């Protein structure tokens, strides 16, 4: 079972595009080559829908043994991985702080290879922070798989991942892929009159304390200068 690190990185000034470029072109190839860690995505948070300026980065490892090897190989990076230490310090111009989550996938969550094989891709990511009522996260995930996933897929949403936090009980993360901005607009326009989605939202209180969604994008290399 794969495991994941999900980072939300607070950006300094206009460094968002530059940090994404650096992660794609230098950081991710280094982590893949030296430690086998795979980049699932480096996305710009769409500021109009959440916190800004921010970048989200999602990393995949094979399992906890791989996680342990990869971290042992990196820390302390001044001794074990000086190239990474240099990247880390160079990136201070673009970011100085962030927040990471260690995540376990649900049984129905595709891994990177499976997602690629099934062509789970699109321009827009719907990022949902999940906070369950005490003891209800597993039940929520069961209902998500059995009841919501078919509704979502009928509306063109593809599940990129549904996760439980490895250390914080009740905390989860859902990532959905939307085809493009027109797909998002169609969904938003249709939602108020969509009886099935409305019924699902009404039931969320059976399992959840809160559900907080925002959008992120995987910008093309030439399009983002902020």
């Amino acid at each position, binding site marked *: 079972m794969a495991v994941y690190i999900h980072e939300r990185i*607070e950006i300094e*000034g*206009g460094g968002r595009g530059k940090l994404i470029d650096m992660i794609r072109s230098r950081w991710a190839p280094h982590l893949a080559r030296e430690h086998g860690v795979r980049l699932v995505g480096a996305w*710009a948070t*769409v*500021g*109009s*829908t*959440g*916190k*800004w*300026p921010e970048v989200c980065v999602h990393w995949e490892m094979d399992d906890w043994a791989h996680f342990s090897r990869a971290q042992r190989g990196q820390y302390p990076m001044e001794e074990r991985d000086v190239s990474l230490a240099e990247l880390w310090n160079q990136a201070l111009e673009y970011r100085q702080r962030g927040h990471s989550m260690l995540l376990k996938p649900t049984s129905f969550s595709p891994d990177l290879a499976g997602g690629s094989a099934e062509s789970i891709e699109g*321009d827009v990511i*719907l990022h*949902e922070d999940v906070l369950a009522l005490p003891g209800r996260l597993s039940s929520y995930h069961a209902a998500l798989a059995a009841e919501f996933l078919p509704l979502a897929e009928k509306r063109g949403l593809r599940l990129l991942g549904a996760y439980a936090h490895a250390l914080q009980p009740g905390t989860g993360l859902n990532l959905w892929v939307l085809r*493009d*901005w*027109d797909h*998002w*607009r169609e969904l*938003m*326009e249709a939602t*108020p009159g969509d009886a099935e989605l409305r019924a699902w*939202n*009404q*039931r*969320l*209180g059976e399992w*959840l304390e*809160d*559900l*907080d*969604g*925002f*959008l992120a*994008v995987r*910008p*093309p290399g*030439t*399009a*983002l*200068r*902020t």
Partner: protein
Amino acid sequence: MNPNIYLHEIIRTVPGREEPYMASVLSVHSDGARRRGEQAPGAFGQFRSAGVSGSWPGAINIWENTWSGLARDLKLQFQDAARDTAMEEWWNRNLHLRRGGYDRILIPAPFSPTRADLNARGAHGKAFLHEILWLPFGEPERYLEEFERRLLPAAQQYGLELIGAFHVAMRPRQVLTLMGAAEWAHFGAFLESADTDPALRAWHEYRASCVARAEEVVLIPARHDPLASSETRSDRPLTSRP
């Protein structure tokens, strides 16, 4: 029925730079050259924290738009190969005015006015009560109905008027409401009467029964915002002031 949607921005401004920031961001939103012939989203309202309740300092921008207009703007901002260079230039040259923020997309309740509605009734004020509320799943719709049915008539008795009442897109527990008082004395009387006015007391009892979390901030309007003044509002275009 209000057909629009609203982009709501809470801005961590550089302390003391709230008014220059609000004027600056209005200028980039109003820049017709960025729009390629499309209509610019209008400023629904721009405000800054008064510092009497809630977080400060900060600014709040609310822009009136449509789903189509917002999707077009976001595509231009993030994925258009031609790039929104005017926005990029503005973003990188105004870092001394703001440090970051948190945005929401708001869906108006049926009774929530448009900017044109507010203009037509000459809406203005010196103090604005802005609330973001977390309610049980399924309750936001009822909350907004009760807000219209119970609170608005009672608040109007004290000189407070509705500026907006909204659901929050992709955040099914949240609602956001905004009311304005023409004078601080009106706002004070409204607060003073919370326990003694039977209608307000009933409203607060309902609120206490369902609100899980509330973030309030008391705001004053940007000096250039039409909501700031009753004297000259008819002379003030919505989006072209610097």
